[in-house]
């Protein structure tokens, strides 16, 4: 029984969805908009989608922009690299911000701070200004981290892979949708009467406004946690404000975060690279016209509607039977098959075969992204934000590295570059073998014979002083809820729909 009556007594709160002891939803109902869980899902994927639309709004209009701003191929390549490099550090910073102020404020702030860059794309008039607006717009891709963090805060272990995969996948869709949206908006504006060189500038207002509105939706309709927003929870004492240096320390000393950052660079990073180069590849090698090349480019990104969520759902499905070991094995297998298909893509010589291989490759590449974020929520509870940020940032590092080494200048033909990229994927997926959770096992070994529990693993992130103050309680609840990662050997505790008295501290 609670001794003191808190203003918003948690024991009387009811949720539309069934929840666990942390009030995270235990089911995922995609058609529902019920606050706070499903509403958070829809707001976060739509805002992330808008950021992707803005970041990749320039590529489909490049044939017009390059003539207006007198760009060379080098200028275009550099701008493309700039667009994905800003997010490298922005994603890590976003992870920190989520840990400290919550995903709602962190993401709406970032989206509103990068909206000016999209608005100002309309007034760029030189290669340098073009590069700068693409660079700053690219920072908005850090909303990926807040999306994954938010889903990990709203959904329980059993469905977090699905939630993360759908939110990430449907957001990534923006990179494909923009290849269809921007040319359409451009032609409508031009038909109204604007000249080409003015029409593209006006067209950029559409993604900019969409982005701004989504930030408002996050602020007014969203909620950090099932129980409320961070600022309210901090002030009422239900959630303590964490110590940043400690959060950072526990993130950078966890080797699993670094391995996942590297491997994510070779699924998501590859996806970003392909988004930037694939239209030109088909245009130059197979001499299709620009619109066809754009459609092919769009279909690569549009596969995200089912492929990335599919990866998340698959991760949750194998975890039911095989636990975390199943998640790791599936991640490695899917990413490796993606690498083999990439090698093949560079080798096939006919248009039809290339498109077919590219589509299958996109499915495996994006599924691997979804599978990665089926593992990330379990690496750390205290530093979830920074770990998510590191992994996400690693994705962008992979994109920058791959484009700089393989797709810049004329050292390699594009098809050779694609094959070499496939080989890089194969090599950089091997470290997944090294990931080991003492309480659940890894790819090679089962759980530690010392019988390490989930509580011990997550408690190790808190010092004894902090434990004495009770700061680790949220982690303990999470540890209890994550027992499903042992696989079929352990029956998970039932999750009541409406919790009467909160269970005594675990």
């Amino acid at each position, binding site marked *: 029984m609670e001794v003191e009556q808190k203003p918003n007594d948690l024991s009387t709160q009811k949720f539309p969805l069934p929840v666990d002891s942390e009030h995270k939803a235990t089911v995922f109902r995609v058609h529902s908009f019920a606050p706070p869980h499903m509403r958070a899902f829809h707001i976060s994927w739509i805002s992330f989608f808008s950021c992707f639309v803005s970041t990749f709004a320039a590529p489909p209009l490049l044939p017009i922009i390059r003539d207006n701003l007198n760009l060379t191929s080098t200028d275009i390549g550099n701008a493309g690299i700039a667009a994905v490099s800003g997010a490298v550090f922005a994603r890590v910073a976003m992870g920190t911000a989520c840990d400290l102020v919550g995903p709602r404020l962190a993401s*709406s702030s970032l989206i509103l701070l990068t*909206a000016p860059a999209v608005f100002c794309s309309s007034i760029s008039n030189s290669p340098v200004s073009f590069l700068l607006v693409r660079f700053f717009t690219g920072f908005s891709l850090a909303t990926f981290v807040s999306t994954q963090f938010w889903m990990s805060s709203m959904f329980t272990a059993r469905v977090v892979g699905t939630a993360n995969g759908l939110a990430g996948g449907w957001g990534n869709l923006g990179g494909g949708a923009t290849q269809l949206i921007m040319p359409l908006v451009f032609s409508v504006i031009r038909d109204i009467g604007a000249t080409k060189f003015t029409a593209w500038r006006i067209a950029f207002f559409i993604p900019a406004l969409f982005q701004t509105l989504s930030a408002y939706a996050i602020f007014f309709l969203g909620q950090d946690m099932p129980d409320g927003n961070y600022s309210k929870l*901090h002030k009422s004492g239900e959630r303590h404000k964490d110590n940043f240096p400690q959060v950072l320390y526990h993130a950078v000393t966890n080797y699993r975060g670094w391995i996942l950052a590297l491997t994510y660079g070779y699924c998501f990073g590859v996806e970003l690279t392909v988004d930037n180069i694939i239209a030109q590849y088909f245009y*130059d090698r197979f001499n299709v016209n620009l619109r066809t090349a754009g459609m*092919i480019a769009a279909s690569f990104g549009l596969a995200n509607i089912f492929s990335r969520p599919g990866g998340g759902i698959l991760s949750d499905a194998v975890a039911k039977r095989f636990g975390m070991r199943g998640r790791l094995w599936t991640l490695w297998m899917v990413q490796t098959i993606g690498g083999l298909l990439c090698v093949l893509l560079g080798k096939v010589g006919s248009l039809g075969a290339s*498109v077919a291989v590219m589509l299958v490759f996109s499915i495996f590449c994006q599924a691997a992204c979804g599978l990665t974020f089926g593992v990330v929520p379990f690496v750390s509870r205290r530093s979830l934000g920074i770990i998510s940020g590191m992994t996400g940032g690693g994705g962008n590092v992979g994109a920058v590295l791959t484009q700089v080494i393989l797709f810049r200048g004329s050292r390699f033909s594009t098809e050779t570059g694609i094959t070499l990229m496939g080989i890089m994927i194969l090599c950089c997926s091997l470290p997944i073998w090294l990931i080991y959770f003492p309480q659940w096992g890894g790819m090679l070994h089962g759980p530690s014979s010392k019988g390490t529990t989930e509580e011990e693993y997550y408690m190790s992130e808190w010092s004894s002083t902090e434990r004495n103050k009770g700061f680790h309680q949220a982690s303990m609840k999470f540890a209890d809820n994550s027992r499903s990662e042992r696989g079929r050997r352990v029956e998970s505790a039932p999750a009541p729909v409406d919790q009467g008295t909160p269970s005594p501290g675990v």
Partner: protein
Amino acid sequence: MARAALLVSSILLSCLVATSYGATISSLMRTLVVTASPAAGQVLKAGEDKITVTWSYNNTFARGTDSTYKTIKVKLCYAPISQVDRAWRKTVDDLSKDKTCQFNIVTKPYNPSNNTFTWTVERDTPTATYFVRAYAYNSAEEEVGFGQTTDAHKTTNLFEVHAISGRHTSLDISSICFSAFSVVSLFGFFFIEKRKAKSSQQK
């Protein structure tokens, strides 16, 4: 996968349509004499300035060489300096793939002499260095002859066009205003958030 099959088949179909035997520029004879009004190095403003082109058949060639000529297309073409590091303007021998001449000035039926046309440089012509070339087509729409205002290496008698920026004051002001509004509304958010947290604590 039905979507993929549809995409693949439509691409293959468009490929079949596009494949056609193209003439090459190296095989064409320079049978036309073309002159244009801009002097070498002159800078023209897109949308304002005019180019007057005259073209005629070069009579030093054998009679009957122009018997197949049916139409003339006069085009504005990129000079090599504007093609550097820009693969979308590349000169390729196969005329069906050549991207040197992307702007049509005029299309007229063939006449051996006294052809002239005045063209206002179109508003969406990009900033670059140009020359003028005329192609002669036969009744099957194949290139059978050409002429240009510059020499074979495309180094002499080139002129420039300065494009419009496409920017308007109203657009500039809108961009700045919306950007400022985004940032200001963010500070508004923080203010509201602080107020809400304080009031919930006082409850």
